[in-house]
């Protein structure tokens, strides 16, 4: 699987992400600096990892969404290349208009790092097909701005179209997100944004490998496509 990880100034979870990708593919992920204007050819996956791009000094993800590389990210997304945005990456995908809604400051107004119980609402996506429908997994969150918000009509539509992929299981919403939404996918099903960090639960030393099936799902989808 050929993947690219975008690096913005202030990105800080790229190492976690690369380590997780390496568990499911032998190919070294390409690290692409934000100031570049073109991604490598033939990608099976583009990842926007977590962090504090540009310090989150404007709205989280607002400046990185306007980085030079993002034009090509949008272009490839429209061409169907799978795109995964985690945490700050999710925020940037929303700011770039690839996903609807916005991530506001947590309802508690505090940063929160905590393991939550995460329900796989849609286990039929290219990113989640190795999970069981309605499976509840362990997954950590670590963010200050993870409070998902969209207008009622958008939320209704996301739910009607099975585009809410992850939900905080009952009682574990850490940030006040509307309808407990933790991750959503675009209409075409190739752009996924999520606040929790599956990459930090992929090794027995992490205490659990519940996050690994997400990366395995992506890798097997890529293999099937190649075959």
């Amino acid at each position: 699987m050929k993947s690219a990880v975008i690096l913005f100034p202030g990105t800080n979870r790229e190492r976690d992400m690369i380590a997780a990708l390496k568990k499911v593919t032998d190919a070294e992920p390409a690290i692409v600096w934000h100031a570049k204007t073109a991604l490598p050819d033939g990608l099976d996956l583009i990842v926007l990892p977590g962090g504090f791009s540009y310090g989150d000094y404007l709205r989280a993800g607002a400046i990185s969404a306007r980085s030079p590389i993002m034009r090509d990210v949008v272009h490839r997304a429209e061409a169907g290349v799978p795109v995964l945005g985690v945490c700050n990456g999710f925020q940037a995908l929303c700011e770039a208009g690839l996903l609807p809604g916005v991530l506001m400051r947590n309802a508690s107004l505090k940063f929160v790092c905590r393991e939550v119980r995460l329900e796989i609402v849609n286990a039929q996506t290219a990113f989640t097909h190795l999970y069981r429908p309605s499976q509840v997994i362990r997954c950590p969150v670590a963010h200050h701005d993870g409070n998902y918000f969209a207008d009622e009509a958008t939320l209704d539509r996301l739910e009607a179209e099975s585009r809410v992929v992850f939900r905080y299981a009952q009682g574990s919403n850490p940030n006040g997100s509307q309808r407990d939404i933790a991750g959503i996918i675009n209409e075409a099903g190739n752009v996924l944004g999520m606040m929790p960090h599956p990459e930090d639960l992929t090794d027995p030393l992490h205490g659990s490998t519940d996050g690994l099936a997400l990366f395995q799902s992506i890798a097997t989808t890529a293999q099937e496509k190649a075959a």
Partner: protein
Amino acid sequence: MLKNEIAITPELVADLGLKPDEYQRVLDLIGREPSLTELGIFSAMWNEHCSYKSSRKWLRTLPTTGPRVVCGPGENAGIVDIGDGQVAVFKMESHNHPSYIEPYQGAATGVGGILRDVFTMGARPVAALNALRFGAPDHPRTRHLVAGVVAGIGGYGNSFGVPTVGGEVNFHPRYNGNCLVNAFALGIADADKVFYSKAEGVGLPVVYLGAKTGRDGVGGSTMASAEFADDADEKRPTVQVGDPFTEKRLLEACQELMATGAVVAIQDMGAAGLTCSAVEMGAKGDLGVRLDLDAVPTRETGMSAYEMMLSESQERMLMVLRPEKRAAAEAVFKKWDLDFAEVGQTTNDLRFHVLRHGEEVANLPIKELGDEAPEYDRPWSELQKPAVLAADTVAEPADYGQALLQLIAAPDLCSRRWVWEQYDYLVQGNTVQRPGGDAAIIRVDGTNKGLAVAVDVTPRYVEADPREGGKQAVAEVWRNLTAVGAEPLAITDNLNFGNPEKPDVMGQLVAAIKGIGAACEVLAFPVVSGNVSLYNETSGEAILPTPAIAGIGLLPDVAQNAGIALEDDGDVILLAGALTGWLGQSIYLREIAGREDGGPPPVDLAAEKRNGDAIRKLIRAGRITACHDISDGGLLVALAEMAMAGERGANIHAPEGAAPLHALLFGEDQGCYLLAVAAEEAEAVIAALQNDDVPVQRLGTVGGADLVVEGTLAVPVKTLRTAHESWFPAYMGEI
């Protein structure tokens, strides 16, 4: 003679924190009246914070060498060998005064400063800890300080991308006017890619890196070397403002820069900014330095030489560059949108020259400024040891269950989840043991090795008996590292005390250092870096003496570790170590009996080492399912913590011992551990411990939903958890 537009009066000298005899020393040294800029430079270099003038004599007595020590105190951070050509680089530093004045920025820049100390040396920061002390919970300022300090530490560390994996928080009225914020950072580097601050070579360019210089923090380290009166709020302009985004870029740029081979010497700008960094690089290398301030990137116009030399703007560094690598070095900083400016050269005249607008504004002997600053042998008094408190003079609780619930919900013993959930303890993906245990563990990236980190001190012990308290702080760190299976390697100390000009306070400092040294010696646990913070007094009242000790330990196979959580029903619970029922200075005594007296529990260093070495062997052999040392609150609190962490009960009988039952259950005996082992292993583990001369007794078994001491108490673990988890959020007004 340098031109001086401002008259140097005794008042001005005093305002800058120099004593009359120190000013006389300046006059004798340079043979003329100093310029204002020069006076500022002396004030910055010779203040307590930068010069350690009151403590140096005693710090020299500490053991600082060992087979694993690569670099001891004196550099930006200490360095120890962790095998396979890798080194661990670590240090702890205080940011007490700034945090009291402006908690968010004070704590944030404390974290920023310590991270810079570590990555200046070429290491990538991989873990952070912090040790926090606040005033009484009901003091009107405490809640504000807790909220701001915790948010500031998180705000900086989370954005920078270092996992903050542990620490400690205490409350006591003696910190009402002076909180303590001690920040620790650990980094990892390849042994052959470590960078030092000693400049080499004459005529080489001195380059300024990072963020621009502003007026923030002017005189910060001088402020930090004085007591507070009631005017602390007026000192807010001396606090710096942190920018973790710039620091993160500076880290990445430094890592790339160091790989180019361009760096001869590098030094971060911390306390006393440009002054301290330039003087240290020159003085260490037996060179002079010439700085042209007109070339320094500034954030605002019209800054005077004095302001620029004393600015403590953050996220800046100074380096001596190999001229042939200049283009490559500059390209790295351009890529990361950081300033890169040649601001001077090294010289061979051992002088520190500073130019502004083409005029020389300072011309000083560099050695005397740096490594020949004044040193004092301050008078100190031998402090009286408190009488040992007989356990049978302390009442038994009316209800043991209630007493336990009260203890685990007390401000000093309750869950710190509210604090550490604001820290990203997972970033970098190497966190193996998270906050809440005896020590945190991170994997060394790309290897099977692990590093454990812990920070400890029990200030009430140090207050009662500084020597025993100093010993105990070192022993407890060593024990906490051992309890997760690590081999303790070395420590960094952060000595927080009151005004050293008072013989009693100086006596505390001297005795604590003696105790620390004694423990380091026996435990083969050298001090490789540290920081001293004195004058922690407000309106004449000193803090509790607080020598915080942070240590690191190595796990050759990170998977062979132990946590505190009870994992399997049916496991046998053992007590290793000698239980005497020591109630003097215990939390039980304070919280239940309402007394703070007696001597602290003594540490038998030989037994400490024997017990710990035996337990580490068992953990590494995979024979222990859970391990927790006995500390604050005693045996029963330790067992309750194990039960809560594992969300399962335990059933024990009363431990054997000569003391009354409540003393055995709540006494804070040192060198003791609770262990859980599989039932079929129990006999063999007991035999192994006995074979190593470790006292051991079988206490009971794991299982059920309650914590039970037969015939004494039975409390549901859920009830314990609710009590333990509720205090902090309730105190912060969230439930």
